[in-house]
């Protein structure tokens, strides 16, 4: 270690192994063991005529939780890889961008759950006689639930890297890989981790849903917390159901505390501003890990010699000779892009043709109009949820945001609330509806809101917290109170945040409607008139033309909403209410 002058806040790294290193090693080995242990369960034989029995004794919960968690992380790894790949391509190549961006935009509007029937059958055919097929379908559902947002986020941070940083990399002749690992990945790290955390939180909903599904008139269950909950409710075992909820909360909080918070605290150094942040993210785990020598040791003793050896083997030419030949590179990229583009176009076209073939002859105008009418009903529900949640949570969120001490713990709580897969608890709420004779047409609004309202809440909290102190002081000096205060300061200041929250909530609400408009409590099945219930119905019976039609209509609704409402609101917020 070289000398560092004392006034600098450079952490002095320890050069010896300590107890924390032992703990880290232990944790790593137990992680490896559990991956293997839970992973083994994914490869067992599977027969789709026999419904998997879920052991509802609480002692089995850790195993089921492990299976669910493993599924989440596998899906997340794929999402991360895919997000970085597509985001990178879109940022680097103009041609790729013209394909990727609109594709991502449409794909993120497609209700994932409607696809389950197609993907489950597809993956089961891919792995005949193995549980792997169903596992893959579940993982795929989680993947499609989180990846688009992450890809967009990565693309956005790639293109907002300051020009001078990119130019510096160019003048020093960094290769694309060196540029990626020295400049582009670090510059995007903070937003990538933040987006990952949010997407991972959204993933719980899909994992819980995809573990216990009925498609093509078959009940398929995967061992996991979601199916455990479903089994417990089927049996009316309230204690087991409660345990499942507790386990879920523990899983979510553990992921937050052990993975995301430390990552966020670590990512603070990747922020692009050169000023020290006033309230840096903190994490006790991160503080502990900083004391560990094992990472430094690993870097010095394993990674560095390895990269040295690799670089000696791969490129024994002097650097001065490796002048970038731009024109050659461009040609290679063009050809590659063309091949990939043609392939994607072919896939999309053949998919469309296949869909049209299925639809041909089975559709009538009446049917299409009926589905659109159902979509309209669900739209009303989504709108009602957004308005109600806004009316209820805006005052509360602002109040919380104005009290830093409350906000500090309320905001992570709201985030956990948003992560919790409320669809696990729908049957219980539906039971209450049955007893209270509440029509599902109204009740489903509550079910939809249960999962999505939190996005509005924590964005409003964030907005209220972001109001600069001088604005607050000014409003106090001029004696603004009540409606005047809300009208002149609070509402405009939180508006951009509200738009983000409401847009996410509404997007999630469409997906949630598929599980919220049709729910079962014991033997009673309650159903609302709406597109969500319709999709759930046709998925269960495996009516392919209707699945295609209903999903297409729902996607269309979402795309139109985005284009004509949310984009406009975003642009308006950006133009009028930006606080800088």
């Amino acid at each position, binding site marked *: 270690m070289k000398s560092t002058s004392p006034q600098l806040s450079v952490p002095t790294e320890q050069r010896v192994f300590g107890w924390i290193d032992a703990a880290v090693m232990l944790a790593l080995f137990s992680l490896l063991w559990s991956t293997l242990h839970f992973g083994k369960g994914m490869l067992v034989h599977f027969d789709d005529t026999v419904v998997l029995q879920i052991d509802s004794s609480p002692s089995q919960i850790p195993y089921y939780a492990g299976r669910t968690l493993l599924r989440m992380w596998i899906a997340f790894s794929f999402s991360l890889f895919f997000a970085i790949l597509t985001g990178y391509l879109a940022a680097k190549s103009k041609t790729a961008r013209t394909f990727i961006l609109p594709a991502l935009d449409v794909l993120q509007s497609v209700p994932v759950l409607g696809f389950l029937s197609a993907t489950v059958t597809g993956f089961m055919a891919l792995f005949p006689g193995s549980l792997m097929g169903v596992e893959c379908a579940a993982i795929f559902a989680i993947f499609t639930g989180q990846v688009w947002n992450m890809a967009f986020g990565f693309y956005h941070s790639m293109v907002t890297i300051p020009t001078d940083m990119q130019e510096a990399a160019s*003048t*020093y002749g960094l290769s694309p890989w060196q540029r990626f690992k*020295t400049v582009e990945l670090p510059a995007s790290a903070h937003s990538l981790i933040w987006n990952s955390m949010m997407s991972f939180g959204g993933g719980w909903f899909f994992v819980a849903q995809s573990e216990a599904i009925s498609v093509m008139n078959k009940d398929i269950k995967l061992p996991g917390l979601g199916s455990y909950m479903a089994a417990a409710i089927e049996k009316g075992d309230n204690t087991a159901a409660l345990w499942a909820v507790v386990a879920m909360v523990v899983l979510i909080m553990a992921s937050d505390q052990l993975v995301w918070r430390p990552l966020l605290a670590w990512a603070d150094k990747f922020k692009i501003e050169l000023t020290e942040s006033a309230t840096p993210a903190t994490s006790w785990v991160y503080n502990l890990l900083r004391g560990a020598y094992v990472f430094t040791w690993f870097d010095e003793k394993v990674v560095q010699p390895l990269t040295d050896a690799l670089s000696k083997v791969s*490129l024994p030419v002097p650097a001065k000779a490796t002048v*970038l030949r731009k024109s050659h590179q461009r040609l290679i990229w063009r050809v590659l892009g063309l091949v990939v583009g043609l392939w994607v176009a072919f896939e999309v076209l053949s998919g469309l043709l296949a869909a049209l073939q299925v639809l041909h002859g089975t559709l009538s105008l009446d049917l299409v109009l009926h589905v659109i009418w159902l979509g309209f009903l669900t739209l009303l529900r989504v709108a009602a949820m957004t308005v109600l949640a806004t009316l209820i949570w805006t005052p509360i969120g602002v109040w919380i945001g104005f009290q830093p001490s409350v906000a500090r713990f309320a905001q992570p709580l709201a985030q956990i609330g948003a992560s919790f897969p409320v669809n696990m608890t729908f049957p219980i709420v539906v039971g209450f509806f049955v007893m209270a004779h509440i029509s599902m047409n109204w009740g489903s609004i509550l079910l939809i809101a249960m999962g999505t309202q939190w996005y509005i809440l924590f964005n409003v909290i964030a907005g209220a917290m972001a109001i600069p102190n001088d604005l607050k002081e000014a409003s106090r000096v001029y004696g603004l109170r009540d409606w005047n205060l809300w009208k002149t300061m609070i509402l405009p200041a939180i508006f951009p945040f509200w738009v983000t929250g409401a847009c996410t909530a509404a997007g999630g609400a469409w997906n949630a409607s598929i599980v919220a408009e049709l729910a079962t409590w014991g033997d009673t099945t309650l159903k609302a008139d709406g597109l969500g219930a319709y999709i759930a119905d046709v998925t269960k019976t495996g009516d392919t033309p209707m699945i295609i039609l209903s999903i297409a209509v729902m996607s269309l609704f979402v795309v139109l909403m985005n284009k004509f409402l949310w984009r406009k609101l975003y642009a308006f917020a950006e133009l009028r209410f930006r606080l800088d």
Partner: protein
Amino acid sequence: MKPQEIAHPVAELNAVSKSFKTAGGHELKVLENIDLVVNQGELLAVLGQSGSGKSTILRCLTGLIEPSSGRAMADGKALDGVNPNASVVFQTFALYPWLTVEQNVAVGLMAHKVSRADRDAAVDKAIELIGLGNYHAAYPRELSGGMRQRVGIARALVSQPKLLCLDEAFSALDVLTAENLRQELISLWRSKENGLSSIFMVTHNITEAVEMANRIVVVFPRPGRLGLVLDNPLPYPRDTNSPEFQRLVSIIHESITTMTLPDLPAEVPVAGQPISRGRSRMESIPFVPVGQILGLMSILNDSPDLSNIYDISDEIGKEFGDTISIVKAAEILELVDTPKQDVRLTELGKKFVASDRVGRRTIFSEQVFKLRLFHIIIALLHENEEVEADRVIKDIASALPYDNPERVFQTMIAWGRYAGLMDINNKTRMVFVPEEDEEAA
């Protein structure tokens, strides 16, 4: 000529032109027909106001951007991609905040095939050389601006480039830090021991250029083209207060002033037409807020002794280039006259200063009304109640091909608002004539 005196070009631009598309989609010519050679061992400064295209020259020279026509050469060969033998020190430092000082400097060697030990040694040497000895493990955000730029310079020097380029490298620093760093860099360059032989710098600071460079090229804007080329034989270290130094500075001042504020020959009056330079030809307007024009007027009025444009620049604490812009704006409006290096209030200017708020606005409005450029909008507004901003911008673009039409438009709206002649509704993007309010009536 003795062989060692033959100039060896390290980098050159041959007939380089460059156009960009503005945000509004208009083609904007930034550089026109630039011929420039950086010779082995020289310290060449390109001097120009902001927006003159001097940074674009640097980017073409290093291969960061490709010229629209003409070509960039390095060591006598045409450049394809970035020049591997040049490095750049950026105005904004362009350090990577997630890397320590050491790691940032090592980025300069990343593309080079050197062993870890050699690399560490080179990084150490560069860090010591530039006086960052105790800061190896610090992160950029822990350093002051001056220290950050030292890291930027160390990173640029670590690979011992044939050509070091400075892109306004000192303008983000405070005066003392900048002066200190300039001196250190000059002595590094003069010692010739560290492989640093040729430096190419762009700056808007005249004193900085005269202090450092042994050849100075002045760029004139819209579109960027080379003006005065000046050898600077003053011995180092240079005393900024010496008469020789001051003489060079004033030569450059003069060249910029006469280029920007030419003494026009008197026009032949035409019967029934007021004499106005604004009427006689289409002329762009400097992007200056009205408040600064008003400020200049009251300073000139308050200090009758103040007439030299350099003294005015000192007095108002603005860069020379900015001062020229403000003076030019006032001159276009016929509020001041600029014989040689002087700035004097015209009769109209005196009347303007003596008037009250309404009177000033009336004079301003009359003067703006005389400008040919404004007739683009005024004529349209005469026919229609409202005019689309995009249409106006398009007309400006065709009338003034070397100006950024969006910026011209914004300045016009700002002046027009003060004059009460026009205003824009930013929601509909429509330009309209505001109703006369009682105050103005």
